[in-house]
């Protein structure tokens, strides 16, 4: 069946669902084209009595106690009253109160591993799209130059800036610092970082930043699957904290999961392998590996579409389940995870 058409799931239910016990009887008299709601006498925040673990919404007072300090997603009014400015959950770090939004764009933080795409090449730096409110900057001085890791930057390098990265190129980098206006500075000063090749890109949009599903910051953002289904080559998965995901064939001794520990005594070797950091030439990839890369991408897509957490554990569980599902149906070749299969997979993964 080439086309799956899903019935809309109550896209426009005509009535307001009354899940709040405290709401009045507004929907009891339903049936007419216009249901009148007399809200007089209804308290304005039905949730406010039910404890702070729920959702706060913009304008809601979180506390009036002056012992707390305001963090992200809050504002201070009248010197001691802290109000929420986004809809989300309250999180408390010692005396700091912040609200993490249910969904928001990625806000860069120092040390984040991000996958980015070059948007613009300027005189001495690149502008990189990292799915944040502003493009990040990658200065020419923050990359490893080929031909010796400690080489001095020269004018020739500036002129040949497009040889390293040009518009559209994908790279993996780390957030080195933040500017006053919230913009991020990146660096690729490690053999783990650099241009991406041999793989597929996927953007998990609209829910970066580690809350509300999407890619969450965890112990490991990158890992290698040594023996994927079907006997293909090893596969690397890179989950950028910013919601950009890269899945590639693992090349020994290269890339983010490289085994080599670069020490001073191995500079030569490092320099040699650094050659491929700026390559845009793919290696030969066999059918099995290609298939499993696409299957992994499908797993991440399902996790994203069903609002589930995306981290190593979930992706690997999802991948194993997806392989099982395919085997059950006796179609290991069938890697498509849309429609019903996606539903099944999401149900298994969310434990419901």
């Amino acid at each position, binding site marked *: 069946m080439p086309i799956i058409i899903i019935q809309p799931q109550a896209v426009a239910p005509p009535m307001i669902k009354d899940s709040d016990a405290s709401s009045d009887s507004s929907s009891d008299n339903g049936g007419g084209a216009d249901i009148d709601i007399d809200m007089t006498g209804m308290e304005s925040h039905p949730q406010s009595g039910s404890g702070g673990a729920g959702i706060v919404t913009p304008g809601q007072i979180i506390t009036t106690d002056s012992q707390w300090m305001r963090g992200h997603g809050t504002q201070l009014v009248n010197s001691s009253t802290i109000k929420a400015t986004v809809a989300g959950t309250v999180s408390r770090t010692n005396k700091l109160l912040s609200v993490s939004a249910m969904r928001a764009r990625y806000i860069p933080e120092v040390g984040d591993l991000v996958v980015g795409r070059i948007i613009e090449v300027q005189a001495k730096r690149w502008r990189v799209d990292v799915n944040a409110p502003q493009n990040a900057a990658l200065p020419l001085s923050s990359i490893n130059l080929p031909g010796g890791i400690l080489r001095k930057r020269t004018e020739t390098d500036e002129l040949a800036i497009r040889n390293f990265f040009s518009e559209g190129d994908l790279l993996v980098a780390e957030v080195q610092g933040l500017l006053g206006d919230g913009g991020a500075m990146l660096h690729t000063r490690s053999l783990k970082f650099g241009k991406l090749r041999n793989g597929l890109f996927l953007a998990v949009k609209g829910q970066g930043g580690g809350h509300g599903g999407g890619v969450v910051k965890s112990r490991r953002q990158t890992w290698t699957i040594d023996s994927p289904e079907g006997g293909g080559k090893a596969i690397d998965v890179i989950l950028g904290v910013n919601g950009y995901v890269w899945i590639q064939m693992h090349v020994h001794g290269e890339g983010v999961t490289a085994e080599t520990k670069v020490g001073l005594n191995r500079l030569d070797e490092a320099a040699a392998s650094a050659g491929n950091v700026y390559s845009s*030439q793919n290696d030969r990839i066999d059918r099995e590996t290609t298939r499993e890369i696409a299957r992994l991408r499908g797993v991440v897509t399902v996790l994203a579409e069903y609002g589930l957490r995306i981290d190593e554990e979930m992706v690997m569980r999802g991948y194993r389940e997806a392989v099982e599902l395919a085997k059950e149906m006796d179609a290991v070749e069938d890697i498509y995870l849309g429609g019903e299969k996606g539903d099944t997979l999401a149900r298994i993964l969310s434990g419901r």
Partner: protein
Amino acid sequence: MATNQQQVLISPAELAYLHASLSLSPEPIRPDGRSSTQFRPLVAETDILPGTNGSARICFADGSEAIVGVKVEVEKTKPKAGAMINPEEGKEEKGDTGVEGGGGFDDDKKNYSNDWVELAVDIPGHRDDDPGTAFLGNMILEALLEDGELVKRLRINSRFHWKMYLDVLLISQPLSYPLPLLSLTTHLALLSTRLPCLISEGDEDPMFDDDWAASTNLYPPRGEKSKLSTSRPPITLLVMSVGHSILFDPTYEELAVADAVLAVSVSEEPTKPVPQDTIATPKQAKDRALRLLSIRSIDPPSRITPPGVPNGLNPATNGEVAGLQPKHAEARTAEVPATEGVWKAPRGGVSRSVLSAMVFKALEKGGVADEVLDGLQGVEMASEILE
């Protein structure tokens, strides 16, 4: 031909990977795992806006969303002399005469005019006189008018007709080339379109039944007695080829490595009106004859993608480190011999055999167009059950 002319921001390494993956034989591996003829799953609903004569909304799982609303108004038909006659339409109608069944049409045939249908496309971030938008609108309209079936249905009597306004709205940012999305939504909106019931007779000034429940479908559902033929509105499918692979419903990134992209408009060959005493069974509905209305080639964005640089020529990869400036520039722009794993934008056309295979795959019995029409039929029926 215009498509989204914005620069494709995909790296040469990604393009090379996509190209290799999509041109795998026997079956290509698509990045989202679909088979080559499979569409993205979509959510479709009809009759979403009570204020219109017909409406539909389609959402793809990736978030692209379109809404189409249909409005009709009574308009006085211009006298014959002023009417614009589409020569092709005239020809086709001769062929259809036998199918027409309910006489009386033949006399006023020349009065049909393609002006009776007006279509406007709205794409966020694009002006409505943007060439890309206008091209999209024209492609959808062209398919609708091509077989003359729609216009025929708009006739009231020799002096009046319905003027139909189709408003096609793309709600999301154009994530991929929106033509198939818009076309399928238009198809559904037309299927759900209802016209007020005519109570006047002959060439009088038209009078209509105020009761909306008495209104009739512009495209009567199968099995309903009607003097009109059972044709359906056309659909336009997007087909692309990479190497020897032929893919339907390509995504943005797949289009970026396409050798050729075709927009194939297909409609159902009108069948004989259903005899009064038999009710069409699903099996009968299956036996549809498809008719090719138009093929347009769309300039794929792959032509303007930046080429990859082979390691051997890239000074940053220990290639010719001696690299002099002019030489670099050359390496990026000039024709470099094809190296495996390095992206090179496709040049030139595709062979006739590939093109004909693309069209054939769309049209064959039980092929993609057939299945898509079946799927859309299901949406129509589901909405009737809800009523």
